[in-house]
C-alpha cells in the first residue's frame, strides 16, 4: 500500500537547533546588566562575548553556510568580520528581546509598515497566515501586533532544556499568544485549520523544517536548493486565508522596523501534491532573498540549509 505524494524526495532532516550556545549563568549575566544599566551595558558585554565566540572555528563554520553564499568573494579576514557582524546582530536581537521583557516594550521604537493592509485582511474573516523567518526579531514584531483584536496563534517548537527566554517570560506574564506545538497531534494541523476557520491569525515559520516534518518542498534560494515547509500554502489553499510575509529588521540602536510585506494568494483546491505548492514557497523565498540583500547580517540560520543541493 503506497501513497503517491512523492514524499522522501526532499526530506533530509535539517540539523538545526534552537538551543542557546550560552549557559544559564551567562544569560543571567546579561539579564542583570539589562536591569542595572539597560541596553548599552548589555551591549558592552556582548561585544566581548561575540568576539570570543567568533574566534571559535565551530561558530564561524555555522555562519559560513549562509555567508559564503551571500558574500562569495570575501577573503579570510572579511569572512571573519562578516561572521562577527552576523553573530553580533543576533546577540543584539537577543538582548533587545530580553530588554522588552524586562524593562518593557516602550524601550524600543518599533515602526510598523502595512498595518492597515493587515487589518483589512483580518476583517475579511478568512483568517490570515503570517509567514515569519529567522530574521530580525520576530518577537519584537509580534509585540507590536497588539492592535489586532483577534487571537494570534504561533506554531513554534521549543526544545527540551532550552534556557532562552521569550520576552513575556521575563516579566512572568502570560503568553500573549496561543502556542501550537508542531509535535502535537498530526503536527498541529487540526489546530491550525481550526484557528483559520475562526478567522484568527496564524503565524508560522517559512524557512525551516520542524523536527521530522516531511512536508517540505525544494526551492531555489541564494544559488542552491533548500527544503522549506509548505504547510502554510496548503492551509491557505484549503481555507482561503491569505498569506502575508512579516519581515522585521533592526534599524539602529533601539529602533526596529516591521514590514507587512506582499500578500501571497494561493488558489483554492490545489490538491494533495506538494509540487502544487512549490511556486508559492518559491515566491516567499524571493522575498527572503531580497531581505538578505538589504539586511545581510540579520538572517539567522546557522546551519547548512542547502545540504549540498544544486540549484536548477
Amino acid at each position, binding site marked *: 500500500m503506497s501513497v*503517491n505524494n512523492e514524499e522522501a524526495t526532499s526530506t533530509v532532516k535539517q540539523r538545526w537547533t534552537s538551543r542557546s550556545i550560552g549557559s544559564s549563568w551567562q544569560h543571567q549575566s546579561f539579564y542583570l546588566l539589562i536591569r542595572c544599566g539597560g541596553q548599552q551595558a548589555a551591549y558592552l558585554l556582548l561585544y566581548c562575548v561575540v568576539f570570543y565566540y567568533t574566534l571559535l572555528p565551530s561558530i564561524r563554520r555555522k555562519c559560513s553556510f549562509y555567508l559564503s553564499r551571500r558574500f562569495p568573494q570575501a577573503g579570510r579576514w572579511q569572512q571573519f568580520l562578516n561572521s562577527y557582524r552576523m553573530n553580533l546582530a543576533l546577540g543584539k536581537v537577543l538582548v533587545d528581546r530580553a530588554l522588552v521583557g524586562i524593562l518593557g516594550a516602550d524601550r524600543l521604537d518599533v515602526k510598523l509598515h502595512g498595518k492597515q493592509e493587515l487589518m483589512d485582511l483580518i476583517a475579511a474573516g478568512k483568517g490570515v497566515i503570517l509567514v515569519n523567518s529567522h530574521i530580525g526579531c520576530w518577537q519584537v514584531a509580534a509585540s507590536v501586533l497588539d492592535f489586532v483584536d483577534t487571537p494570534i496563534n504561533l506554531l513554534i517548537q521549543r526544545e527540551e532544556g532550552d534556557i532562552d527566554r521569550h520576552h513575556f517570560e521575563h516579566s512572568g506574564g502570560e503568553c500573549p499568544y496561543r502556542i501550537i506545538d508542531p509535535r502535537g497531534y498530526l503536527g498541529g494541523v*487540526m489546530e491550525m*485549520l481550526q484557528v483559520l476557520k475562526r478567522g484568527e491569525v496564524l503565524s508560522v515559520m517559512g524557512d525551516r523544517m520542524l523536527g521530522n516534518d516531511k512536508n517540505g518542498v525544494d526551492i531555489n534560494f541564494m544559488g542552491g536548493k533548500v527544503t522549506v515547509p509548505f504547510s502554510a500554502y496548503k492551509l491557505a489553499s484549503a481555507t482561503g486565508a491569505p498569506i502575508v510575509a512579516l519581515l522585521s529588521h533592526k534599524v539602529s540602536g533601539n529602533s526596529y522596523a516591521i514590514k507587512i510585506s506582499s500578500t501571497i494568494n494561493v488558489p483554492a483546491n490545489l490538491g*494533495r501534491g506538494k509540487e502544487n505548492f512549490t511556486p508559492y514557497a518559491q515566491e516567499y523565498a524571493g522575498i527572503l532573498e531580497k531581505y538578505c540583500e538589504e539586511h545581510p547580517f540579520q538572517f539567522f540560520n546557522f546551519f547548512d540549509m542547502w545540504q549540498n543541493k544544486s540549484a536548477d
Partner: protein
Amino acid sequence: MSVKEKLKQVLIEDLNIEDVEPDEIADDLALFGEGLGLDSLDAVELVIIIQKHFGVEIKDMVESRPIFESINTLAAYIEANKS
C-alpha cells in the same frame, strides 16, 4: 453504496492512493501513520473531502480528533451529521 464504501473510494481517488482497491482497506485500519499511511497535511484534505462529497462540515477540529482514526469513525461521524 454505503458511506464506508463511498468513503474508501473517494479517499483513493482524491488522495491518489496507489495500488489499493477500496475493499482492501479494512474498516478499522488506522488512516494516519502506519496503516493507510496518510500524513499530517492529509488531514486538511480529509476535511475538504468530507465536506465536498458528503456535505458534512467538521466544525471543531480539535474536539473531532477521534473521528480521524479509521473508516469506521469517519463514517460514523458522517452518518450522524449529514442532513
